[in-house]
């Protein structure tokens, strides 16, 4: 715990000093970046201690807040979430020293460091009020980071959507904590075990409050609408933190609070599974339609959160049904996938930032041919793409392997509806897995491969060593996870044992052990190496001639003729997607022998935002405005009447008490 305080102290000092009016622009970078790096290192030690020791540390200070106490608790579950937080925080800090523009950097360091502190506080808080305080700090600091590019209208608009969504979600959390506090008599988590005695309907109502409150932060399907706008608007390393870590703090909250509630009835798990699979399918379909590379990655976060929620739902459902082996597999899958997603999604966001930094555009159609000009970044993005597509030998497969095994276990042993749902989910999850490959080959094939699609892309430059080293570390961690899946299971076990001891005890068993997966990853690397050396050996015999792309004898291919981001998904879009997802396109048709010049406009906004939430909120705003006009009529006697009636009501209230 001491290292955690040291980390907060360092981060806090850096945050306060970086934005002072220093004369040289280097000083904020040194102060902010240095403190962030040191703070994250110290935090990593704290997380490592928590994971290795495996027992909870508590800390408490009196706090003059009514109902609040400054009490912290660092146990296996907290340490499990602190670990990715500080890894990505560290990589992001190193990355930002190069990525951030000079004039915006100092203030950015303040918000960045405070964001890290508040996220670490969210996962260690042991009091409801402190949790909400840290939660709000996290929302506000990340809001300021989202609007770092405050001179761009779309960034500010995305920021407002985010602020609105996160506060609506927080309102549900306030409702939860007030209700829970009323039931248990105190806002301290140590007294929340009394919630375990609640009746099922009351507990279910609390669970729904949690689902909406945390779901709006985690990007669970119907509440994800802010996420595809806000994550891309932020600087890339902040996108990495938000997509990789911040959405996970919401899942932490959900898990922690659910652990206080009584053991769930079956339908909680069923609800989570339904939301999860819909979110996964929806997220990956939308990701395939985006031409903005970061927006595509943000939708892929919606998909991955969907997969995690699906696995968590399956865990809850199997636990309620008493199938502990399946529950253990699903829980391990959810936790490992959560950890893995942090690693590869931040790698991909950092890589996307590097592409934007190098080529000056976020549009896939303006990139192209970056593999030649930015070889290291491209290699790392290919690694990230393989990891997120769950391809061996990277870590993505490990989490999905557990989830698939849980679903296979359910589908192949249970009878009736108990076997039907896991089997159906398995098929849909396989579909999602196939679509992830479409999305990732699209990003790699359109942005990195081929020839440059714009003059800027032809002039693109490789990132410097801070950005590259940050990405390399993430890529190596992804590879390490794939080669040593047992380690991932160990780490997940520390969190799992707090959530579901019956299932987590099975983690150590031979039946669950994934060491063969690591073994196969090594064998894959071996056979790839053998095939590669064969290819090299044959190549040495002949000469390697360079020529134009043959392409069936078409001698003058131009980048404008190559497949574009939209044409890449046209087949999937027309063959597989339901009509509500089809993007709006305007006038791409050419008619007749001598067509006029035509323009083609293609936009893929979020259908849920455009067709449901925006009309709903606009109607609400209009209604409230009309009510307001009626109340504030401008006549003095009406206002005096308000004051008078309010006073009388207060008197009555005081008298009643």
């Amino acid at each position, binding site marked *: 715990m001491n290292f955690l305080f040291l980390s907060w102290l360092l981060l806090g000092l850096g945050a306060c000093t970086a934005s002072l009016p220093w004369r040289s622009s280097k000083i904020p970078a040194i102060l902010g970046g240095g403190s962030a790096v040191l703070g994250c290192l110290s935090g990593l030690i704290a997380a490592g201690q928590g994971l290795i020791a495996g027992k909870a540390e508590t800390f408490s200070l009196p706090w003059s807040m009514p109902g609040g106490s400054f009490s912290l608790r660092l146990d296996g579950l907290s340490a499990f979430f602190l670990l990715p937080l500080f890894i990505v925080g560290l990589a992001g800090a190193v990355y930002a020293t190069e990525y951030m523009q000079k004039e915006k950097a100092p203030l950015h360091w303040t918000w960045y460091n405070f964001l890290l502190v508040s996220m670490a506080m969210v996962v260690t808080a042991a009091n409801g009020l402190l949790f909400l305080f840290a939660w709000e700090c996290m929302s506000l600091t990340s809001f300021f980071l989202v609007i770092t590019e405050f001179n761009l209208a779309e960034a500010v608009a995305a920021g407002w959507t985010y602020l609105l969504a996160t506060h609506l979600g927080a309102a549900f959390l306030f409702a939860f904590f007030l209700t829970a506090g009323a039931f248990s008599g105190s806002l301290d988590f140590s007294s929340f075990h009394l919630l375990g005695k609640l009746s099922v309907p009351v507990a279910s109502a609390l669970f729904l409050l949690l689902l909406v409150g945390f779901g709006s932060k985690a990007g669970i399907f119907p509440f994800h609408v802010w996420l595809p706008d806000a994550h891309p608007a932020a600087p890339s390393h902040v996108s990495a933190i938000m997509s990789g870590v911040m959405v996970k703090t919401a899942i932490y909250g959900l898990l922690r609070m659910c652990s206080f509630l009584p053991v769930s009835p079956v339908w909680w798990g069923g609800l989570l599974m339904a939301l999860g699979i819909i979110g996964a399918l929806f997220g990956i379909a939308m990701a395939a339609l985006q031409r903005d590379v970061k927006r595509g990655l943000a939708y892929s976060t919606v998909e991955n959160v969907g997969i995690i929620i699906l696995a968590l739902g399956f865990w809850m459902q199997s636990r309620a049904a008493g199938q502990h082996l399946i529950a253990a597999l699903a829980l391990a899958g959810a936790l490992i996938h959560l950890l893995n997603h942090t690693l590869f999604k931040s790698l991909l966001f950092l890589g996307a930032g590097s592409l934007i930094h190098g080529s000056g555009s976020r549009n896939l159609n303006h990139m192209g041919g970056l593999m030649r000009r930015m070889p290291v970044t491209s290699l790392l993005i290919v690694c990230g793409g393989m990891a997120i597509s769950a391809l061996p030998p990277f870590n993505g497969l490990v989490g999905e392997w557990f989830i698939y095994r849980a679903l296979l276990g359910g589908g192949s042993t249970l009878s009736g509806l108990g076997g039907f749902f896991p089997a159906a989910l398995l098929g849909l999850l396989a579909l999602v897995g196939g679509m992830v*490959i479409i999305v990732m080959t699209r990003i790699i094939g359109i942005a990195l491969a081929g020839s440059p699609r714009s003059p800027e892309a032809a002039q693109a430059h490789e990132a410097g060593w801070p950005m590259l080293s940050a990405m390399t570390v993430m890529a190596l961690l992804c590879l390490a996870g794939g080669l040593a899946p047992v380690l991932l299971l160990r780490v997940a076990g520390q969190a799992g044992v707090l959530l579901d001891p019956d299932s987590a005890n099975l983690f150590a068993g031979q039946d669950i052990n994934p060491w063969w997966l690591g073994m*196969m990853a090594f064998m894959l690397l071996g056979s790839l190496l053998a095939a590669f050396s064969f290819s090299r050996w044959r190549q040495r015999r002949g000469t390697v001639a360079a020529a134009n792309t043959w392409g069936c004898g078409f001698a003058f291919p131009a980048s404008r003729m190559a497949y574009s981001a939209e044409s890449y998904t046209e087949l999937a879009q027309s063959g597989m997607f339901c009509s509500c997802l089809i993007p709006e396109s305007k006038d791409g048709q050419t008619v007749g022998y001598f067509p006029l010049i035509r323009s083609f406009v293609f936009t893929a906004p979020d259908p849920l935002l455009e067709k449901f939430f925006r009309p709903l909120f606009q109607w609400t705003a209009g209604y409230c405005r009309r009510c307001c006009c009626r109340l504030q009529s401008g006549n003095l006697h009406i206002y005096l009447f308000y004051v008078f009636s309010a006073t009388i009501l207060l008197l009555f209230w005081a008298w009643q008490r």
Partner: protein
Amino acid sequence: MKITILQLFLHLLLLFGLSPLLSGVIGKTKALFAGRTGPPWLQLYYDIWKLFGKGLVLSRVTTWVFRAGPVVGLAVPVLAALLIPFGSIGAPLSFTGDLIFFIYLFGLARFFTACAALDTGSAFEGMGAVREVTFSCLAEPTVFFAFIVLARLSGSLSLDAMFGQTLAASWHSAAPSLLLILVCLFLVTLVENCRIPFDDPNTHLELTMIHEVMVLDHSGPDLGMILYGAAMKLFVLGALVVRLFLPGTTGSMILDLLLFAGGMLLLAVIIGVVESTMARLRLLRIPQLLVGASLLSFFSLILLLR
């Protein structure tokens, strides 16, 4: 969880030695239907040998990803072949849950073949890449449903046991389900190896093709590796179909080997017959057929859920 040296040796021998012959058998069958003599039985061996001795021409646009396509395309089927039984010869590598690894291995090959195709910057090859990833994506649920049926029948989650000794008994107890997934796996074999009715491996210049167009720019040893890898992929997926069709064992390893080899050749003849008697489907019909196959395999699972 076992590694047997003899099984490993037999697997590699069969895979490397026999896989290019299937293409020759298919070619001969098609020639028979068309009344031609057709290419020699061993044509693909000659082609591969010739290509391995040739020089390499690379497009100026391409990078390492382009070279990685053939490497992955060759390494993946070899590793995948070690996870499945060939006839009644058990898999050399087997562990609980290896079927997921098996499916994602082919995902890896697809990922790199598509990236390599896009690396040439040609619209032709982009088109092929799109079709490959989209159709395989639709075929994936079918494979999972088929495997879950077999897992249910055998009570195990490793390919070796799922396609193992219990299969013969399962044919007695659950013949309708197994018949359905036999059809589905045959369809998956056709789509994954780009055969008619999904793709025509003979057309190079039509806009309808998938796999052939992706490898247009590969040449020399790289093309040889791609051809070899494709032949092995057909062999591996075909081996699953053959095992499903010919379960059980005769007791003698030599007879089992001959039975398996005969089964593979029969499969090649059937593919040749399908290719000779059917036309390629319209492109937009293909997703419908694939979704149909998924539903069929899901139905075969429902038959078992009771």
